[in-house]
């Protein structure tokens, strides 16, 4: 199993708060290694959420919910 972590977009603030803006997959979907599965925002900067391995994804954060850098937002197994 692998953690999917909110990417670090702000270098100055390692635990900066942001938003999980978009999920491209539904909870339980099969994902491929390297697949783009979501988008996040910190301030005005957008970032990509990439699946770290192939498997079934389990979403831990809902769309438009607040989250912070480094937080585990999904898992893949």
């Amino acid at each position, binding site marked *: 199993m692998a953690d999917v972590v909110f990417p670090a977009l702000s270098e100055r603030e390692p635990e900066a708060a942001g*938003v999980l*803006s*978009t999920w*491209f*997959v*539904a909870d*339980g*979907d*099969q994902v491929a290694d390297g*697949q*783009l599965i979501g*988008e*996040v*925002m910190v301030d*005005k900067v*957008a970032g990509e959420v990439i699946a770290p391995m192939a498997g079934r994804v389990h979403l831990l954060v809902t769309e438009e919910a607040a989250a912070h850098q480094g937080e585990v937002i999904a898992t893949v197994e």
Partner: protein
Amino acid sequence: MSVTDSATAPPRGGVRRLTTARAVAEGIAQEMERDPRVFVLGEDIGAYGGIFGATGGLLEKFGPGRVRDTPISETAFIGLGIGAAVEGMRPIVELMFADFFGVAMDQIYNHMAKIHYESGGNVRVPMVLMTATGGGYGDAEQHSQCLWGTFAHLPGMKVVVPSNPADAKGLMISAIRDENPVVYMFHKGVMGLPWMAKNPRAIGPVPQSGDEVPIGRAAVAREGTDATVVTLSLSVHHALDVAEQMAEADGISLEVIDLRSLVPLDRQTIMSSVAKTGRLLIVDEDYQSFGVSGEVAATVAETDPGMLRAPVVRVAVPDVPIPYARPLERAVLPGPDRIRDGVHRLLKA
């Protein structure tokens, strides 16, 4: 008629979904891989990936020779696109906001659109002029317009207006491959941008393949029997939301037609639907008078007005510049409340 299930289907397991912005960029990238003549020009389309994400990732993939940021010189770089197209290249030129057409309209409507005809068909201008349109996020008079009626009105350029990610990719591919100038107009509100409130339909399944979506063919986004709603762009999403709600709450069955293209206009699909329902509501975020909604109404009026059981209802921007203050902006844009009200007026008559 075809049902575009990307606009209505719930997310399905294992199907790849993208935002409209990413779908546009993917369409461009696939064509750039396939055809070395394709290149991209515009302001902030390189490292920034386009203000509205339409060219995301292209600079990294194809380099600064084929993905070029320009100075703020729309006349010069749109004209440059024209000349390059005349010499056999396939430019994609981004006009950052459709509202900016004023500074470069001569190159667009007097050159890009007319050279093929003026030359008796001997010179082709196979370029894509892509541009961001639409409001609803407080950008006021000069940055919120749709203006597709203006472009559609002037002969010599095709005009496409996708509403959803799959159509956005397919229409971009068609536009690039078309031998004619194509004005590709994407509403900012359908792009699925993380920094702008979005309708869930801004994210949807997008084929991996580089298949074209035909220019000049509307799509039946939702089948129905009580009334026809002809619309385009972001208003398709609002119309579908209203249709779902009214089916549930009032037992009203609305047929929603997503025009997808304005030039050529799929009058056949419009007429077939109105023939079935007898009632026509047109929802258009452009200015009401002398534009798309009038053209759709005229299509019915000059073909067979007898098929109408009630007068046509138009829900559009009421011939006023788009104001800044949110309550005013909401009042003039054709949002779900105005659409619902329009349906009631249509069915009551």
